[in-house]
């Protein structure tokens, strides 16, 4: 089990990653924040959170990209840049891999489902939290 001290240290590195998602990933930088070697940081991170620092970063970047695709009208290139990818090809491939469809398709699909511009459709949240509205929409 990860000790409280280790968890606190690795959390500092995790916070560093989370607040720098728009920058090129620096494992060394995160490890310095955690006061650990990069190798030890990766091992401790995986043990504490069940995912590697890179997997955590990709998850954050994809979630941020999804949010920007739905709630803003930025170009895909701008979004790619805002979530820390320098290559549009790499970003699109990763997005496709994690979400199942390309960024442009994702935006079109969500916007088509929503009755309000720049809002997520009600169907993206569990129905038990939205039953009154879904009832209204279906009537």
């Amino acid at each position, binding site marked *: 089990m990860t000790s409280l001290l280790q968890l606190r240290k690795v959390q500092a590195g995790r916070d560093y990653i989370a607040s720098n998602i728009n920058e090129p990933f620096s494992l060394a930088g995160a490890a310095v924040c955690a006061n650990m070697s990069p190798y030890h940081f990766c091992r401790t991170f995986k043990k504490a959170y069940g995912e590697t620092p890179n997997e955590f970063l990709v998850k954050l970047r994809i979630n941020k990209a999804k949010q920007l695709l739905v709630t803003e009208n930025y170009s895909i290139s701008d979004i790619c840049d805002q979530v820390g990818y320098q290559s549009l090809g790499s970003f699109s491939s990763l997005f496709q891999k994690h979400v199942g469809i390309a960024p442009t398709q994702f935006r079109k699909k969500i916007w088509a489902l929503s009755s309000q511009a720049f809002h997520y459709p009600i169907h993206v949240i569990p129905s038990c*939290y939205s039953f009154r509205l879904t009832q209204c929409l279906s009537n």
Partner: protein
Amino acid sequence: MIKSIAHVTAYVINQDEALDFYTNKLGFEIGDDMVVEGGFRWLTVYPASQPQLQLVLAELKEGPMFSEDTAARIKSLVEEGALGVGVFETEDCHKTYEELLAKGVEFIQPPTEQLYGIEAMGKDNSGNWFSLTQPKK
């Protein structure tokens, strides 16, 4: 067969204030924060080491979940401390208690020996109680 619990709900008075409490005082991470049709804000947080379980911070106001009347009735229950969020586990109840106390978290019971471990009882800034428990090994 049900595999796991993915979401549980905390009914809160104000989402911004609840978000500040759960992230800046309890150290939770933000899961989802999105506005859906009808202006409903879907806001979830989770303990950093347990991203699989999302705590939904559901604001008590008229919307896709509640009528105005239902929201008002639940709000009064939350404010009088009749509802709880659940049990938060820690490796060291005394230490976490001191840390949270220093951050201004309100406790209604200090760390106390129980049959199942050491437990303190706290309240979030809406009025929901929570148990801070160091399980017995």
